[in-house]
C-alpha cells in the first residue's frame, strides 16, 4: 500500500509543481500588466501552432532528453553529474569532426559520427569518474572544471584545426547528417531531424541498463551503499567510472544530435549551450526515471520553444518562461511541501 502511495506521490508532485509554476507565472504576468491568457495562448501557438513549430519543438526536445538522461543516470547511481554541459560540447565537436573529416557511405559514416559524439562525452565523464574512484575527488568540482575545459578546447580546435581562424566550420558531409528532407518537408522546413528517435531509444537503453541488467544492479548498489557493494564482491571503483562514462555518453549524444542534426556544424561559442544545465532540471522534474525524463524534456522543450512567440504574440518577454521553469523546479525541489500538503489534505478528507 505504501509503495502505491509513493508511486502516486511520485507522479502527483511533478504535475502539481507544473500547475503551480504556470499559476505563479500567471500571477507575475498580471502583476506586470500582461494578460496571462493571451501569453499562454501565444506560448501554445509558439509550440504547436503549425507543422513548422511542432517540428522545431521536437528538435528542441531531442537534446534535452539526452542531457536529462545523462544527469538521471548518474544520479541513480549516486553521482551528481554537473558536467553534462561539457560532455555535450565535446560530443558535438567530435561528431562534427568525424562528419567533416571522414569520407564513407552513410551506413558507416553516420553511426561513426554519432558514436564519436558518445565516446567523446564518455571520455569527458571518464576523467571525473576515475578521479573520484581512485583519489576521492568530488565529481561536482571536477565536472564543473571539465565544462570550461571543454568549451575552450572546443573553441580552439574549431578556430585552429577545423577552420582557418573562422568561427564556424563547414557543413558536415551529407553522409553524416541526421537531417531528413522528408521530415523537413513534413514540417515546412523546420530543423527537425531523426535524432528524436535516437533520444527515445536512449531512454529505453537507460531503463534497460538500470532495471534489467546485472550492471544496473551493481551501479545502483554502489550508489546506495559502497560498503555493502564491496562486501558483496562488486568492484566499486569500476562502477563509479563506468557510471560516469555512460552518463557522459548520453550527454555526448546530445551534442552529436545538435552537430549532426540541427546545425550540421560546430561553432566557436562565447558561453555554455545550457543544454547540460537544463538537463539537471529535466532529470529533477522527471524524478530520474528515464520515461519521466522524456516527459519532462517534452514539457521544457515546449515551454522554451513556445516562449519565442510570447513577445510578438502577447508582448510578454521570453524571460518569463525561464521564471516559470525556475518556479516549477523550485516546487519539485521542495516537493516536501507538496507532499505535506497532500498528506494533510488526505487526512482531512477521511
Amino acid at each position, binding site marked *: 500500500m505504501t509503495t502505491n502511495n509513493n508511486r502516486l506521490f511520485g507522479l502527483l508532485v511533478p504535475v502539481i509543481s507544473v500547475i503551480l509554476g504556470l499559476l505563479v507565472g500567471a500571477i507575475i504576468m498580471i502583476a506586470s500588466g500582461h494578460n496571462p491568457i493571451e501569453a499562454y495562448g501565444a506560448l501554445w501557438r509558439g509550440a504547436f501552432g503549425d507543422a513548422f513549430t511542432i517540428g522545431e519543438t521536437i528538435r528542441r526536445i531531442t537534446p534535452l532528453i539526452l542531457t536529462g538522461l545523462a544527469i538521471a543516470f548518474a544520479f541513480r547511481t549516486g553521482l551528481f553529474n554537473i558536467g553534462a554541459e561539457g560532455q555535450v560540447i565535446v560530443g558535438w565537436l567530435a561528431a562534427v569532426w568525424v562528419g567533416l573529416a571522414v569520407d564513407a557511405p552513410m551506413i558507416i559514416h553516420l553511426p561513426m559520427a554519432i558514436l564519436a559524439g558518445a565516446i567523446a562525452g564518455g571520455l569527458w565523464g571518464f576523467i571525473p569518474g576515475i578521479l573520484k574512484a581512485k583519489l576521492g575527488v568530488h565529481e561536482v568540482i571536477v565536472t564543473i572544471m571539465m565544462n570550461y575545459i571543454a568549451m575552450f578546447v572546443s573553441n580552439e580546435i574549431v578556430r585552429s584545426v577545423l577552420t582557418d581562424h573562422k568561427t564556424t566550420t563547414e557543413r558536415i558531409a551529407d553522409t553524416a547528417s541526421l537531417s531528413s528532407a522528408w521530415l523537413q518537408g513534413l514540417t515546412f522546413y523546420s530543423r527537425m531531424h531523426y535524432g528524436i528517435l535516437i533520444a527515445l531509444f536512449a531512454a529505453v537503453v537507460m531503463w534497460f541498463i538500470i532495471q534489467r541488467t*546485472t550492471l544496473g*544492479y551493481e551501479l545502483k548498489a554502489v550508489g546506495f551503499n559502497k560498503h555493502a557493494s*564491496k562486501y558483496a564482491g562488486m568492484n566499486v571503483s569500476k562502477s563509479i567510472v563506468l557510471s560516469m562514462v555512460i552518463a557522459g555518453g548520453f550527454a555526448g549524444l546530445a551534442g552529436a544530435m545538435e552537430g549532426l542534426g540541427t546545425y550540421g556544424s560546430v561553432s566557436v561559442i562565447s558561453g555554455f549551450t545550457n543544454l547540460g544545465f537544463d538537463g539537471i532540471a529535466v532529470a529533477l522534474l522527471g524524478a530520474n526515471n528515464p520515461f519521466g525524463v522524456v516527459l519532462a524534456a517534452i514539457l521544457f522543450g515546449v515551454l522554451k520553444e513556445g516562449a519565442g512567440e510570447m513577445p510578438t504574440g502577447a508582448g510578454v518577454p521570453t524571460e518569463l518562461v525561464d521564471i516559470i521553469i525556475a518556479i516549477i523546479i523550485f516546487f519539485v525541489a521542495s516537493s516536501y511541501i507538496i507532499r505535506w500538503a497532500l498528506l494533510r489534505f488526505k487526512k482531512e478528507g477521511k
Partner: protein
Amino acid sequence: MEYVIEMLNIRKEFPGIVANDNITVQLKKGEIHALLGENGAGKSTLMNVLFGLYQPEAGQIRVKGEEVKITNPNVANDLGIGMVHQHFMLVEPFTVTQNIILGSEPKGKFGKIDIKKAEKEIQEISDLYGLKVDPSAKISDISVGMQQRVEILKTLYRGAEVLIFDEPTAVLTPQEITELIEIMRSLVKEGKSIILITHKLKEIMEVCDRCTVIRKGKGIGTVNVKESNPDELASLMVGREVNFKTEKTQAQPKEVVLDIKDLFVKDARKVDIVKGLNLDVRAGEIVGIAGVDGNGQSELIEAITGLRKSQSGQIMLNNKNITNMSPRNVTKSGLGHIPQDRHKYGLVLDYPIGANMVLQTYYQKPFSNVSVLNYKEIYKKANELINEYDVRTPSEFTPARALSGGNQQKAIIGREIDRSPDLLIAAQPTRGLDVGAIEFIHRKLIEERDKGKAILLVSFELDEIMNVSDRIAVMFDGQIIANVKPEETNEQELGLLMAGSKQDEAGDSSDN
C-alpha cells in the same frame, strides 16, 4: 510512597500501529527501575514520549505528583530528566569539558567561555559519583566506557534528577559493566532515580529494584525484582517459555578449514592492529573469538573476507591461499560472512529485501543470464529464504530499510547460510536482537556446525561466546593469547584474559 515520575495509561499511535497501548510506569525516588521488552516492543517510543520527542495520544505524565506536558526535550531537561543514549552524542575532537558544556556554556566576561570553572564543576560531580573522568581529556582518546560516563556527566551537569539509560551495556566489556553498575548504585545513593532500558535479564536481576515489562506495545505489569527470577521475567517479556541454554551436542571437529599463520594487518590509521595472529577453525566446530572491542577483531575479519589488505602472513581456506584476494573470489572460495554492521555492510537498505537476498549471487544463473536479471528467479529465491528464515516483511518488494533489525539480520543469515559456505564468519550476529531472535540465530549456527561447516563467531557478549562456541580463542592486542574450552572456564577468567593478563596467571584451564 512518592513517585518522581509517573507515566499513566500512555497511548501512542503511529499510522497503522499502536506503539504504546495503555502503559503505566511509576518511578520511585531513589530506585533503579528496569524497562524490559523485546525489540520493537515499544520501550524506546515510551521513553521518547517521556523525553518530549513524541506526544502521547492519551495518558498522563506526572513529575513529583504534578501533571506536566512535555512538548520537547528542553522541557524534559528543565524537569530534571536526562537521557544517556545508546549511541553517544559526542564531538570527538573536543575535550570532555567542551562536550559537557556544549549548549549551556558558562559565560565569563565579554561572553568568553569559562572553561576553568566548568572543568572544576565537572571534576566535582565526577568525584561525587566515582566516575573517574578526566575533564581535560579528548573524547577521541578515551575508551567507550569512559565516553559513556561523559554522557552520564552531561545529564548530571544539566541537573538531571532522573536518568534514562538506553541499553547502556551493549557496548561495554564485562569489567566496564561491573563499573557501570557501581556508578548506577552510587547515583541512587545520592538520591537520583534511574530508568534502565534493557533486554538483558542478568543486569536487571543484579541491579534493579523493580521492573516494568512491555510486550508488543502493551504494559504487562511491574514486578519486584527480588521476588522474581530470570525465567519469569523472560516469559513475561516474550509471552512463552524461553530456553536460555542453547542445546547442542559435543562438537565433532574434522579437517582444518580456515588456517591463519602469522597475520599482520594495519588499521585505518596505518598502525599494526593484528600482530602476528595464528588461528585455525575446523569443519564441524564453532570457534568463538572473545575480546574487548578494538583489539583487532574487526580488522581480522576484514582481512579474511578480503575487505582489508593483509600486510604479511597467510590465510588459507580449504587449503587454498586466499590472502589479499578480492571479496568476490573469497566468497567464491567458500566463505559466508554475517557482517558486524548489518546496515553498513550487510544490506543495501534502499533495495527491496528480495533483491538483497542475491547480493553476492545476482550475476550467476539462474538469477541472471548474459547480464540480464531474471527477477522471477530472484524473487522466488527470496521468498524461499523469507519463509525458511521467518523474515517478517510485508512482502519481498519491501525496502530492506523498512524491516526491523531482527528481521534484517535473519535475512542476512538466510542469505549467507543458503550459499552453503564451508566457513561461516558470524560477527556479532545477535547484537541488539531480542531473546527470540537470538535463540533462532544460535540454533541456525549450531545446525550449520552439525552439517560439518566451520563457524567463526566473533562477539563481545561473553554469554554468547560461552553458550555457542565449542572452543574460545581470546584475542588481545592483535593476537590470540589463549585457547580455552567453554566448559573449563568462566566469565571471570575470560574477562581477565580479555584484559590481557597471561593465561598462566589467570588460572589452570589452559590447553595450549
